Structure formats: C-alpha cells, structure tokens
C-alpha cells in the first residue's frame, strides 16, 4: 500500500496548485524572510501575520501547511469560517521571541511531531507556524504509516522526500539547463508516491532534476540536520524508487529563524544605453550619495554588464542601472527614492526606461539564525 503526497506551493507568492490528486497536500509558504514580512503586516494589524493566499485553497484531501506564519490561530479561524464542517488543527509554540529579546522575530523550526499529533487528533487541515519545510511531508508519511518518532531511517527517507518537493516546481523542471527545450509551460507541482518501507518515487521529475534539488540549500550531505532526524544522504540510491537514506537522533537544539529590524530599504531602476556605462553608473551613484550627505548606503548594480553576475562581466551597449539603498531612518530612504527620476533630464545621453512612480520604502529586517535547546520549546496543538 502506498500513499501520495503532493506539494502545491513552494513559497509565498508562488502559484498555488489546487489540482493535485493526492492523499495529502502540503503547501509551503515560508522562506527565510517571510516571517519578517508577516511581522510588518502584524504591526499594522494584529489579526494578520499569516499567508492569506492560503484562503483560496479548496480542500479536497488532507492539507498540511505552514501558511499560519506568525499567527496560525488567526488563519485557522478564517479557514473555519469558510469550512465549518472541517476539523482544523493548529500547531504553534514556535514563537521563542521571549528568549531572544534583542530580536524582532524568533521562531523555532518545529518538526513533524506536533503535526502528526494534529493529524492523529482527526484534523482535516493542519495549519502551522514555522516548521522545518521537509517536516510537512515527514508528518504526512509518519501519520499515514504509523511510524514512531524513533524510526530514524524512515524519517530520514521522508526527509529526503520533503526536501525534494518543498520548493515545488524546482524539482519538476524548474531551474534546469534544458528549460527552453523541455516544454516549460507544462511545469507543474511535484507528487510523490511513498511505500511502507519509506522508499518513494517522484511522479513528475527526472534523475537529473532530482540530483540538483538534492544539493539545493544543503551543507554536509552526510549530516543533514532537521528537527525530526539527523539524516545521512550519502548512500541514497536513485533507482526506480529512491532509497538509502539513513537517520539518527535529531540535534538537541532547534534552529531558530530570527530577524532583527535594521532600518529601511528601497530600490530604483533606470535604463542606460551607450558607452562607458560603468563610469556613468558610478557617477550617478556618487551624485546621489553626495546629495543625501551619505545618510544612506547605496549599491549600484549594472544589470546586463556585471550587476547580476560580477564574476563573468560582459560588455553591453545597454544595461539597467539598479540602485539599492538602505538607511536607519525612513525619511532618508524616502529622500533616496526621489533621487533617480531627475536623471531623466540631468542624466547622461541614453538614459531611458524609468518606470514611473516612486519606489516603495520597505522595512529592512536582517536574518539572524539562532539555536535554542529543545527543552525550552513547547509545541502546542489545538483544534477548531
């Protein structure tokens, strides 16, 4: 007997695939900076702080999602209003800000355990705050097959599966070097079929794509740390089924996704056509810095020459000059956003393509990863 698990969303802002025919649907909304964006939302309205996009989903099977963000209860209440007959499980307790008073947000990456508890409690939809991305998949498998939390080899297998599908289209044709020749309009969302022994197949991927997604965002493949297991990927076998992951106990600490509000940031773009573009870009940047009395820091990226890839510069007769600024005071960054448009008339010959309107000023949160002893964290499971 096997189970099918699909991931219908790789990040907040991704398309959402609600069409997957699976036993369990995971939807991953949280990337490194999502929580700080949600913190800004919640500053303006304490009832927010979750990924409201999730409310577009029409439940057709069991769903596990981290769309709860900083306010899983808030999202759960909205879901319950729309689907009163469904049982909603809420996983929280990831907020550990009280242990990190210097930070603006601090959320422990919880594991599969509390999600499994919610599913065992009969939840149709489980909404979490910050959990480790692969744990969304691990929880579905662990619940479905009735594994114990010490079944480390099986949890390691499920962790590989979760790691492969957590970024959605990245494993079904996205980011591949043969993209143009492979019918990219058909790139969909991943579905896996997992068997009782935790071996699994990806239904819509290739070995080449699987290898690339395996190495994505990892450090030591012999020691992949998750809150559920310490996994060793080195003996993975990519055959008809994927097998070979080994596991042992997870670390005694949880990783913490922390952020600190540093100030404000904004980005402005303008086109440049002509020669000596690097000099012109640097001159524009230094004129603006002087006018702002160095109250902000500005980085100029000349996209088309070396702005996206400084390691392989190329000559070009045109480029997009992107100025990104940061400053401690909102007023200084606001002043920055007014500085590029005037170059439409006082800039060098060949200036063009200024996209009208002033760029928005956004709060700038810096990522601050931390660790916290597991004993200090109390995952909470509730039901609506």
């Amino acid at each position: 007997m096997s189970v099918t698990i699909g991931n219908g969303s790789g990040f907040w802002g991704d398309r959402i695939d609600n069409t997957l025919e699976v036993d369990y649907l995971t939807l991953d909304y949280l990337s490194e900076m999502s929580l700080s964006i949600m913190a800004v939302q919640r500053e303006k309205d304490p009832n927010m702080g979750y990924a409201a996009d999730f409310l577009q989903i029409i439940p057709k099977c069991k769903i596990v999602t981290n769309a709860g963000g900083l306010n899983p209860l808030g999202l759960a209440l909205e879901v319950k209003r729309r689907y009163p007959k469904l049982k909603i499980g809420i996983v929280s307790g990831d907020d550990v800000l009280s242990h990190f008073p210097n930070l603006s947000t601090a959320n422990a990456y919880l594991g599969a355990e509390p999600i499994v508890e919610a599913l065992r409690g009969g939840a149709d939809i489980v909404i979490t705050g910050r959990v480790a991305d692969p744990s969304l998949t691990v929880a579905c498998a662990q619940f479905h097959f009735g594994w114990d939390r010490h079944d480390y080899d099986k949890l390691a297998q499920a962790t590989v599966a979760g790691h492969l599908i957590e970024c959605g289209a990245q494993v079904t044709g996205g980011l591949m070097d043969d993209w143009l020749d492979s019918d990219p309009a058909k790139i969909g969302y991943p579905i896996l079929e997992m068997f009782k022994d935790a071996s699994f197949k990806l239904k819509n991927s290739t070995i080449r794509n699987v290898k690339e997604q395996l190495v994505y965002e990892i450090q030591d493949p012999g020691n992949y740390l998750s809150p559920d297991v310490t996994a060793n990927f080195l003996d993975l076998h990519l055959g008809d089924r994927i097998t070979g992951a080994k596991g042992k106990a997870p670390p005694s600490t949880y990783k913490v996704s922390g952020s600190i509000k540093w100030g404000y940031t904004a980005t402005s773009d303008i086109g440049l056509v002509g020669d000596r573009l690097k000099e012109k870009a640097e001159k524009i940047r230094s004129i603006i810095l002087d006018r702002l009395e160095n109250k902000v820091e500005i980085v100029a990226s000349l996209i088309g020459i070396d702005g996206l890839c400084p390691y392989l510069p190329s000559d070009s007769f045109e480029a997009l000059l992107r100025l990104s600024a940061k400053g401690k005071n909102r007023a200084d960054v606001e002043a920055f956003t007014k500085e590029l448009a005037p170059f439409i008339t006082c800039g060098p010959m060949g200036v063009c393509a200024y996209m009208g309107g002033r760029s928005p000023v956004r709060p700038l949160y810096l990522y601050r990863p931390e660790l916290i002893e597991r004993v200090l964290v109390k995952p909470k499971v509730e039901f609506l």
Partner: protein
Amino acid sequence: MKLKEIAHARSGDKGKSVNIGVIGNDAKSYQYLESHLTPKVVAAFFNHPEEKVKRYFWPKLFAINFVIEEILDELKADSQGKAFATALLELEMHDGISTH
C-alpha cells in the same frame, strides 16, 4: 573546457552563505572534479577568501557541494545567490587546471 561540459549544478542560500552543488555527469567527471575543482579554484573564481570555501564530497551522486560563507549581500541584485551555479559552470578548466 568549461565546467558545464562535465557537470551540472544548482545553488541556494543560507543567510549570507551560498551553497553550490556541482554534479559530475559520470564517474570520470567526478574524479576530475575531486582533484581539480578545489576550494582554492572556486574561491579564486568568486574572488573570495579561500578559508571561507568549504567542500563536501558526495561520491554516489558524483557531486561535490561547496559552501561559500559570507558572500551574499542584501543590497546586491542577486542577494540570494540564485545565479552562482550558472556562473561557476562557465569556469574554464584547461589541461586539468583552472585558468580563470
């Protein structure tokens, strides 16, 4: 010979660090990568201190995973290191030694 002729790759970020998983096309490519795609070569390509480049071997995948610490910057256009793999695949390897 460019790296992309014997390998494919993908990069991702973790805070200010980038990881680049370089996957050799076959066993022979992997052997070549083991001896020639060193932290020194990768550090030179990215103009970054060698001591901040770590390398992990994954022989069954024909892969080597590089972790480059403290290279990303939120104000730079590719602040998440998404194009690092594409860039590294252009690395010229000549007579077994990089000439970048």
